[in-house]
């Protein structure tokens, strides 16, 4: 039973049904959160790789990545720091497209990034049309502070799973905690189940 906060009340009379529990609408704002400085990798040095439990490494240069079949998505996103943002528009490549033809025994992936950030996900959370590697936000190239040149987009999980400055995926049969997961954040992070921290 929650403690009632004397004199506290909601500001909006109707709660938006798109808001998961404990979240609020950030409106036009797009807050930036990251643990370290924004990395700057030139596109000539950039690549994206699939490694680990795969039948051979896959690697795409920037040009090769840009030539892959693209999708445009409009989704709601939810940050564990409590803000949500509706109808965000992205373009990029479905993770399904990257995994097409890959034979693997893996059940998990670790997304790894410039700057050393990692996050872990069940493979099932990034396949079947549920995740993208995006390079465009709201019609513009993805800004470095928002994860450019590319970030992962997994809108059905808290946004720390949508790793910025993505450089690839390591597939594995085992679940290994990523950066924030090591510090006590939830292994999966479903906003509708309010899985913010370990044990939630």
């Amino acid at each position: 039973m929650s403690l009632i906060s004397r004199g506290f009340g909601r500001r909006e009379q109707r709660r938006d049904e798109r808001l998961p529990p404990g979240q609020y609408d950030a409106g036009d704002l797009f807050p930036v959160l990251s643990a370290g400085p924004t990395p700057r990798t030139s596109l000539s040095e950039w690549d994206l790789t699939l490694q680990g439990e795969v039948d051979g490494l896959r690697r795409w240069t920037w040009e090769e990545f840009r030539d892959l079949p693209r999708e445009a998505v409009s989704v709601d996103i939810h940050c564990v720091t409590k803000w949500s943002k509706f109808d965000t528009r992205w373009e990029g490549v479905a993770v399904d497209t990257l995994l097409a033809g890959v034979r693997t025994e893996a059940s998990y992936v670790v997304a790894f990034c410039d700057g050393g950030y990692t996050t872990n996900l069940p493979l099932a959370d990034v396949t079947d049309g549920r995740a993208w590697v995006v390079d465009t936000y709201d019609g513009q190239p993805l800004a470095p502070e928002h994860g450019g040149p590319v970030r992962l987009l997994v809108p059905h999980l808290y946004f720390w799973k949508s790793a910025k400055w993505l450089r690839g995926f390591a597939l594995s049969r085992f679940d290994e905690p990523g950066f924030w997961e090591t510090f006590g954040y939830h292994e999966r992070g479903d906003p509708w189940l309010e899985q913010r921290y370990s044990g939630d």
Partner: protein
Amino acid sequence: MARAAVQRRLTWLRATVLENRPETARVHRLLLDVPGWPGHLPGQHVDLRLTAEDGYTAQRSYSVASAPEDPRLHLLVERAEGGEVSPYLTDELRPGDQLELRGPIGGYFVWSSAVDRGGGRPEGRRPVQLVAGGVGVAPFLAMLDHHRRTGGATAVRLLYSARTLQDVLARDVLGSWTTITLTRGAPADWRGLTGRIDRRVLEAQTFAPTTRPRVFACGPTSFVETVATTLVDLGHDPSSIRLERFGGSGDRS
């Protein structure tokens, strides 16, 4: 710094408000008694949860602004006009009221004197450079007060950007290791710095990259982004720079 795996479950605790006092025109200090508080590292934060009579709840995160050695938990709350949570906390909350809270949360943006000892590791005594914008000084107050209480040997400096002298928080904790710059006007007899923190100020007022400091920066998003980028340009190792942003909620929580 060793990664402390914090895997125990975070449960909601009931905090009692001991004091709610204005610290500046816009920032209040909440002093909380939290039975069952498991202790924290300087730099960690808590989640507060408010519940309305109709069951509606709102949650926000606040850095702990007090040292682990202080039996009371201090939070600094900046009042955001039109916000749902912060005006309630600053204007409505009275001593004796209860709040739900859980934590401590976060294990990356932390520093404590225990890092100094570090089993004789050579990196144990790296200097610590703190850079704060506005109420972003909150986690550093926990670090500085902890540092003072434990008499640590680590060299620590804080570069602190505030709007005016009246906006400077917690002067009793800042001490001689703090350099303040005022961005929106200074008194006639002000002998400190004025203007925003830029490359020149960072070069002159922070530990040089050659001393391999651990750097922590906290403040509004644009402030932190600028400081971090400039420090990297000056030659600091990106992996030595840790960031925390206030107003990540868009300055209106």
